[in-house]
């Protein structure tokens, strides 16, 4: 043993002990392995990241076709990569905050984009597209509300992917079997009155099913109802408006849907097996249906094909808005991808080919049920094709009819925070009413009483949002921080 040790020591310089030599060797070998493994060459010059598998599958052949053509005429070639939404958003934020490159083109969802708007407008990580969109006439060509989530302080940072109008999807098999004509429904009040008799199927005076898939904890449903009513979390100057009269009215009314004598709503969670079962069983008769939802139901609850129909959302008052908006996606170019003259043009050409072409419009509708925001395509006969899932209705046309009426979405980086605080207010209100009702208080669900309490809870929420905004010294310029 000693002999072996001496022999090893003899091979090494005097200043390097055998132990240190082994550690150094291991460090060199492992570093080399890591370096080789990490430097997988990117076959193409540019990279695009997306977060949704259906989008990825839809874009794959289009990117391939682009690359084939681009290889001939010297345009940039692209690699398409699919990342999970949180992973992509974190890499994007790390890139923007650390000023290091990520992909050259990013397809991002609304909430991820608004997070990039927290600093001074010049430090937003996306390339400002405002002038380009103006110059190319795309501001007029694309449905105006589709720009709202990608706009901050007058600058537009994304090319819109969609409109996402919301309708109500209802169980036509049950409703029509009862001889009910939904065209007589204009307001939420009508909705409860006309469909109300369908809730008690056994005749024991207790509801066995509910009219609407809605619960106080569902932030998306709450936001779309607030937007439909003309409310929301921020005004056009990004000042918080949580305790506005419209929001107070909506929260109080929703509370009457969630409990008490006028209860019409129940919780059948979206994107879950539990919720799908409840929907398939007819536990809830109607759900909010943005244009992208139909494709999800078609795959997740195929048993409902031919049993569903779409109708415009009931309005908050006669003559009111019959739609809202849920979600949103854009294509953006990170500033780090534009290093030298000509970079932007190469990337922009790819973005337009992907989002603005007539082929994309068809793929988007055929494969995802999503209507394009490019208005010139709205007259295409593809949108008049009958949709088997919706009992033969021309779903595309129904959504397009509502597309120009879609409300603007806010792009404040504090939108999610404000939404959670508004949900907190609704949860408190609903639970307080439920407790009072169970304690035998007759006026627990009286609207004036609920409104007074909603005002108080929303006032607390407003204060919390204002406090958070005050901390952000960069947004003082937009009036958010006073």
């Amino acid at each position: 043993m000693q002999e072996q040790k001496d022999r090893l020591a003899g091979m090494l310089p005097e200043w390097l002990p055998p132990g240190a030599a082994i550690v150094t060797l291991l460090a060199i070998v492992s570093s080399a392995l890591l370096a080789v493994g990490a430097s997988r060459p990117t076959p193409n010059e540019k990279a695009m990241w997306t977060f949704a598998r259906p989008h990825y599958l839809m874009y794959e052949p289009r990117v391939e076709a682009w690359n084939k053509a681009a290889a001939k005429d010297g345009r940039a070639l692209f690699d398409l990569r699919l990342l999970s939404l949180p992973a992509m958003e974190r890499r994007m934020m790390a890139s923007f905050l650390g000023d290091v490159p990520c992909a050259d083109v990013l397809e991002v969802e609304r909430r991820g984009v608004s997070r990039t708007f927290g600093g001074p407008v010049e430090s937003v990580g996306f390339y400002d597209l405002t002038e380009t969109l103006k110059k190319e006439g795309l501001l007029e060509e694309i449905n105006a509300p589709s720009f709202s989530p990608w706009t901050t302080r007058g600058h537009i940072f994304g090319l819109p992917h969609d409109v996402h109008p919301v309708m109500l999807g209802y169980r036509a098999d049950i409703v029509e079997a009862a001889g009910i004509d939904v065209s007589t429904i204009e307001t939420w009040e009508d909705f409860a009155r006309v469909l109300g008799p369908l809730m008690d199927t056994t005749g024991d005076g207790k509801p066995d099913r509910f009219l609407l898939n809605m619960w106080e904890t569902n932030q998306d449903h709450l936001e779309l109802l607030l937007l439909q009513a003309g409310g929301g979390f921020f005004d056009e100057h990004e000042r918080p408006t949580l305790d506005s009269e419209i929001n107070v009215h909506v929260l109080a009314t929703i509370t009457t849907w969630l409990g008490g004598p006028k209860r019409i709503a129940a919780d059948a969670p979206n994107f879950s097996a539990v919720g799908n079962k409840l929907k398939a069983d007819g536990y809830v008769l109607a759900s909010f249906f943005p244009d992208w939802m139909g494709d999800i139901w078609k795959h997740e609850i195929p048993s409902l094909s031919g049993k569903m129909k779409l109708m415009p959302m009931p309005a908050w008052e006669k003559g009111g808005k019959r739609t809202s908006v849920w979600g949103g996606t854009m294509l953006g170019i990170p500033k780090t991808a534009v290093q030298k003259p000509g970079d932007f043009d190469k990337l922009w050409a790819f973005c337009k080919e992907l989002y603005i072409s007539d082929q994309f419009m068809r793929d988007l509708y055929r494969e995802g049920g999503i209507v394009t925001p490019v208005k010139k395509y709205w007259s295409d006969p593809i949108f008049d094709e009958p949709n088997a899932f919706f009992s033969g209705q021309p779903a595309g046309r129904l959504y397009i009819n509502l597309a120009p009426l879609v409300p603007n979405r806010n792009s404040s980086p504090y939108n999610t925070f404000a939404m959670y605080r508004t949900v907190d207010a609704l949860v408190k209100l609903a639970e307080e009413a439920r407790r009072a009702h169970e304690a035998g208080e007759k006026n627990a669900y009286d609207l004036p009483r609920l409104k007074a309490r909603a005002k108080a809870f929303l006032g607390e929420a407003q204060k919390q949002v204002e406090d958070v905004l005050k901390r952000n010294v960069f947004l003082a310029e937009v009036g958010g921080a006073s």
Partner: protein
Amino acid sequence: MSAAHSSAGSGFRSRLAPWLFLSPFLVCFALFTLYPLVQSVVLSMQTTFGPGATKFVGLSNFRGLMGDPLFWTALRNTCIYTLGSLFIQLPLALGLALVLETPGLRGRSWIRLLLFSPSMVGVVFAAMMFALIFEKQTGLANQTLNAMLKPVGVDWSLDFGWLQQHVMSALIVASLWMFVGFNMTFFSAALQNVRKDLIEASVVDGAGPIRRFFTVTVPAIRPVAGFVVLMSVIGSFQLFELPFIMFNNTAGPDNRAMTIVLYLFQNGFETGDLGYASAIGWALALILLVCAGVQRLTSRGEEASA
């Protein structure tokens, strides 16, 4: 000259060698622990949005924290969960360990494996499982209670909102399932090391099982119990994945599942306020330091009295 040179060389080698061996760790520690630690102190006194947008705000993030109702909600929830861990989970773990150490118990290894196995399951998996168990209408908890109580005339509502009105109970139940067996193994090991001669002597002196437990067993397992308590407190204060997954990436209805780390995450990675998130991180570190200090003082007092 040559001998002097050789001796100097060997002295240099013996001084250098430890540093050479330590250097990989020291470099990594400095780069990935020390630097971020110092940087997070700096960050906690800034409002920042990337390197190009940073403003020094002094202690205003910490002042904001003191008046932030959500931080206090998070702290209150975390404390309730910690107390649940200490006063339900640990006694249960100790009780199970005592049962397992009963002489003559058959199938001891299998029972130990059975009780320990939930801790081998990932927290994310457990959280998803309990989210399904506590669902309204279709959840196992409500369905079971409904079926069991019906024969005795109780109509258990399938709409009972475990994940709405009983958030902390749901979280504590889930954590009991996951960690009771894990803590039991520590107590089990400690119980195996209790000196048999002391137990026999106490039996000879006429001590009953309860007296034996408090006068012989408890003092003997105290160092291990102290360690388990400290680890549970630290683990409980770092609670994040369980509520995050169980409540679908939110803090639950009316922030009932908001914990300090979840609030830190929301501020740092959802709102993008890294300065405020750093301040929350340092507040959490301070709380844990106080807990560790208290534990240390208590155990030192016990050692002195022993």
